[in-house]
């Protein structure tokens, strides 16, 4: 489905069932709610401390937002610069219009390397496009190496958070998955996080030492120098980016920054916003190919998949500033109670509610813009100052409303506009029933109605 200006929308794991229905299911899962409540409360506190340490947090936010806007305003120039710099450094740049094309490019590259398996690191975008499934269809096994992605993969599950994809699982559930799916796991494995991590380390070590092809995402790409940047904690990124012969990086076209020095903003705001640390354990940066060090073949796949459609909307394009820190998820009272699966997209939570509908087109994601009370907590914590509440209202404007709802809204507006009808409506407030008919009965399911007033305020005012 195309938009005006001919910018097709994205496909892939970006939409699911209606949010109210999926949320209802998630709310009934006490384990999920307990896991999420505990996890998000912990990280909220850590983030607050880490951000509170910086006297220039607001200045970094303003700088970061403007840097991203500046990049997006002249994205073609920056993309061309990036392409030239990566090519000059010995890398190969590929372009993909959509998920299908990106999957085809990656599959072709893996086959050309003569490999039937790849190790993967840090890539929500490959979840977005469904790369693993596409590779599997071509007989290529994809091994996730991020601990959380490994847990999701072994659990035959889907990620539920941008940064901590297995946040919906607690240690016992993870222990059960490992015992079931990892051959070397001892039967009596206890659910101690350190032991679970050690098991993952041993299990993946073999893969790292023997894999010939790695697929990664990227947090940032520097247009000026052609440098790519992966921000991580565990070291699997370093493993995937250093050991194999061939490295394929898939990246959304919005992930650029103009110059090398511009990283100074995001390297400060990303770790503090995401894991609540001054700096994450490992950040790797590489440019093209370095003879004798790391992969000797490097491919960068630049992905559109709905990003140009998002870019075309002056009121929506700020969503592309997102640096995938997940601070908004961790502070959202809706996400905290429903988890990520309810959103039906690999990008859930507040940013997901504005980005997913723009990538797919609002017609294919009608309920996400309404999955919010507009409380604004997300906007407060966003390191690139994306005004998510205003953007949600903007997207709601684009969702075709149910006929009955439009009728009701029109009637109410008509009452508000006419002093005579308004006075009449206020007078009717005296007859407020104890119960309401559906769908208004949803109100009285858990809330008592107020006592009907004897007279409206203005009736009292004119008589005093």
């Amino acid at each position, binding site marked *: 489905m195309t938009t005006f200006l001919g910018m097709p929308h994205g496909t892939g794991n970006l939409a699911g069932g209606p949010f109210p229905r999926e949320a209802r299911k998630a709310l009934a899962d006490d384990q999920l709610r307990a896991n999420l409540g505990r996890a998000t409360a912990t990280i909220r506190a850590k983030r607050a401390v880490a951000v509170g340490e910086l006297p220039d947090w607001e200045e970094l936010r303003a700088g970061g937002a403007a840097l991203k806007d500046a990049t997006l305003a002249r994205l073609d120039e920056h993309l061309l610069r990036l392409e030239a710099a990566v090519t000059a450094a010995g890398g190969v740049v590929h372009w993909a219009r959509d998920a299908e094309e990106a999957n085809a490019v990656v599959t072709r590259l893996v086959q050309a390397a003569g490999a039937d398996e790849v190790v993967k690191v840090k890539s929500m975008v490959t979840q977005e496009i469904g790369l693993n499934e596409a590779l599997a269809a071509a007989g290529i096994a994809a091994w996730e190496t991020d601990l959380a992605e490994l847990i999701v993969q072994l659990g035959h599950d889907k990620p539920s958070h941008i940064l901590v994809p297995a946040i919906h699982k607690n240690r016992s559930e993870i222990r059960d998955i490992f015992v079931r799916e990892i051959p070397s796991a001892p039967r009596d494995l206890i659910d101690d996080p350190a032991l679970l991590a050690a098991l993952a380390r041993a299990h993946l070590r073999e893969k790292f030492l023997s894999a010939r092809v790695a697929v990664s995402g990227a947090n940032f790409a520097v247009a000026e120098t052609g440098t790519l940047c992966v921000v991580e904690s565990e070291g699997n990124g370093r493993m995937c980016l250093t050991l194999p012969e061939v490295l394929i990086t898939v990246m959304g076209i919005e992930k650029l920054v103009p110059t090398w020095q511009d990283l100074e903003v995001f390297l400060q705001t990303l770790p503090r916003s995401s894991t609540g640390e001054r700096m994450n354990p490992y950040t790797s940066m590489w440019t093209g190919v370095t003879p004798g060090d790391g992969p000797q073949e490097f491919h960068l796949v630049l992905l559109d998949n709905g990003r140009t459609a998002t870019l075309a909307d002056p009121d929506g394009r700020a969503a592309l500033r997102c640096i995938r820190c997940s601070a908004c998820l961790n502070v959202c009272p809706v996400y905290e109670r429903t988890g990520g699966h309810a959103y039906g997209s690999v990008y859930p939570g507040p940013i997901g509610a504005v980005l997913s509908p723009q990538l797919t087109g609002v017609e294919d994601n009608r309920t996400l813009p309404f999955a919010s*009370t507009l409380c604004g907590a997300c906007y407060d914590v966003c390191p690139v100052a994306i005004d998510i509440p205003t953007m949600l209202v903007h997207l*709601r404007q684009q969702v075709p409303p149910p006929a009955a709802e439009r009728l009701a*809204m029109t009637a109410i507006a008509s009452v508000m506009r006419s002093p005579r009808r308004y006075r009449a*409506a*206020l007078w009717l407030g005296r007859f407020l029933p104890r119960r309401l008919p559906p769908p208004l009965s949803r109100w009285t399911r*858990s809330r*008592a109605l*107020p006592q009907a*007033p004897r007279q*409206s305020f203005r009736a009292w005012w004119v008589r005093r």
Partner: protein
Amino acid sequence: MRVALFVTCLVDGLRPEVGKATVALLERLGVPVEVPLAQSCCGQMHTNSGYADLARPLADAFADAFVGYDYVVSPSGSCAAAVRHQHPRLTDKRVPPVLELSEFLVDVLSREDVGARYPHRVTYHPTCHSLRMLRVGDRPLRLLRHVRELELVALPDADTCCGFGGTFALKNVDVSEAMLADKAAAVLSTGAEVCSAGDTSCLLHIGGGLTKQGTGVRAVHLAEILAST
């Protein structure tokens, strides 16, 4: 100084005592208010639900109703926020400064002690529009601290949204109820007799929940407490 009261449709029709209290309070402080009867609704429900076209005439009507005043005061953080942040995009008509009650009392009248007495244990919920759009900060708490015999107890997780969210309360009723349950539990944990806030919409939601649970905790608007003597 000519001050007009924007009483809001919810207060006008369902909670007139909040409007009466606001009038009584301001008059006691020496500020006679006028109530232009052409006023009705700020249109936030329409704007927030994607019906900007229906909200536009309401924004125009608002501007027309309040022409000529020095200040417009409203006992609603969300309505003041709607006028200040949403109306400029809906209409070119200008309005006088529109202030939520605590902003008017503290910033314009320079009062934190309004001569009130309210001998009850009270906990205060800072509503999202007041907290994040208007950034009223601790003005309401400073006002409450000067109320004689009022025992103010801090609300745990105060900054978390109550779950009303306008049409969200109906469109996403399950999540709304889950958020309400947590907010009600937080209120109950304080042992307060009264939960107060500066927004009638949130109070109807929280108060409605507390009443439905049979807790005996009342939801009372900030204006009603400050007007009490």
